[in-house]
């Protein structure tokens, strides 16, 4: 099992969700967790104006999608995320990153099930 953590542009969340749905949605196994994060990468933050003075925050708003997966779904999920999260026309700085972490155990609280079937 793996924990796939993708940091993406907020506006891509819906697209990523749909893409993941299409590759994962077998036996209701499509589940994920989303949270708002602030990213610091090569992309500069948005410029805002305060009475004519530009103010640039160092951080840009990103969304982090976390999804626990059985091994065979990892590659399809990565491909799906890349497809949906990449800016049209070959990608742009700020498109984000995917991290894959080893997952030792997974427990469904409702039933107490463990392992791959609990994911």
């Amino acid at each position, binding site marked *: 099992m793996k924990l796939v953590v993708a940091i993406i542009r907020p506006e891509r969340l819906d697209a990523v969700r749909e893409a993941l749905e299409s590759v994962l949605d077998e036996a209701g196994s499509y589940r994920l967790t989303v949270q708002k994060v602030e990213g610091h990468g090569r992309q500069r933050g948005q410029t805002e*104006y305060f*009475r004519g003075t530009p103010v640039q925050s160092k951080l840009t708003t990103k969304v982090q999608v976390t999804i626990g997966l059985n091994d065979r779904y990892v590659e399809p999920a990565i491909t799906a995320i890349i497809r949906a999260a990449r800016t049209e026309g070959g990608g742009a700085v700020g498109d984000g990153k995917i991290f894959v972490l080893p997952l030792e155990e997974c427990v469904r609280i409702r039933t107490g099930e463990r392992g791959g079937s609990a994911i």
Partner: protein
Amino acid sequence: MMMTLELTSWLSPLLANGDGAGNTAWMLTSSALVLLMVPGLALFYGGMVRQKNVLTTMMHSFVAMAVIGVQWILVGYAIAFGADHFGLIGWSSKYLGLVGISPTTEYHHAIPELVFVMFQGKFAIITPALISGAVAERIKFSSYVLFIILWSTLIYDPLAHWVWAEGGWLFKLGVLDFAGGTVVHVSAGVSAVALILLLGRRRDYPDGAILPNNLVLTLTGAGLLWFGWFGFNAGSAVAVTGEPIAGPTAGLAFTTTQTAAAAAALVWILLEWLHRKKPTSLGIASGIVAGLVAVTPAAGYVIPVWAMVIGAVASVLCYGAVQMKAKLKYDDSLDAFGVHGVGGAWGALATGIFCSVGATGLIGGSGAQFLRQLLGVSVAAGFAFAGTLVIGLAIKLTIGLRATEQQERDGLDITIHGEHGYHLEGV
């Protein structure tokens, strides 16, 4: 339990025609409107600071309602509108705590004097609160409170006497200030600069990304200010004798107020559009305030089209002044000088240019009034600047002016007031 008051004095000649209740109705309304400007200012300023300082910033305005509210009753009114001494200061001990003013005492045979005391008292409250914008996010709360008590007593009250009391020396010289361009805005804006010199910049200025926590508040505040300003300006018709207060002059002042604010708001966002391609909500709020500030000294003396020009030019000047700040890197947090100082000075001078109702300005071919206005602005600016330096320095050397490094970093709300503005997380 019916109350029967002595009505003889009330039914004075002018009022015999029955304008008494109407005048009083309008002045009560105006006084209430000016009071509402203080929460309006709290929102206007509070929205612009960072989340960690929203409460302390709003409290700067609210605490002025508390302390100057008390100070004005105790001594302020006596200093500003007590019997004149050499044109320099007022004092009537019967005004101490207002004990000598009965409910039926009249002001100018037009309204109960208590209503006049109230109306003027709201001006005394809001003026020091205006200054707070310059020192937001770093001044120590207790020092601020001490400062406004001293400032109000030593600077504002005498200045109000000079310009508005019938014996005041600037009044007698014919300096015009319909509703407070010099007394309120120039004095506050210039005092802001003096305080900034003593306080220094915020630790994150100009390098950090300081962003307003809640521009909805700022817009709401601008709306309340506009609304309340009708009382501020049109209520100032109380000083014009020989006609009903709720009459032609109030109507004129109301119109010029509206007109200048609208024109200034429009020009400000046009400037932003030209300069940055972004017309902002903070810009429209700032323009509104700049226009209102500038028309304040002129409100009852100019016709509506000139008020429009005054407002439009105010936005150009204030917008420019704010850009200078970014260049000079002094830290007038919320542009108390850039908006009130510059706008107020322009308005006071513009009164000397455009006045045609009850006085004649440059456009009427007479330069005398303009020179008087120049005098008024200079005196108010010089007096307020020097006085603030002295008061500020005294506080700095005793209890200190500035919050600690750690308070500033963690936010004044939690460290000084033991509160957070918002608890909006579900967790």
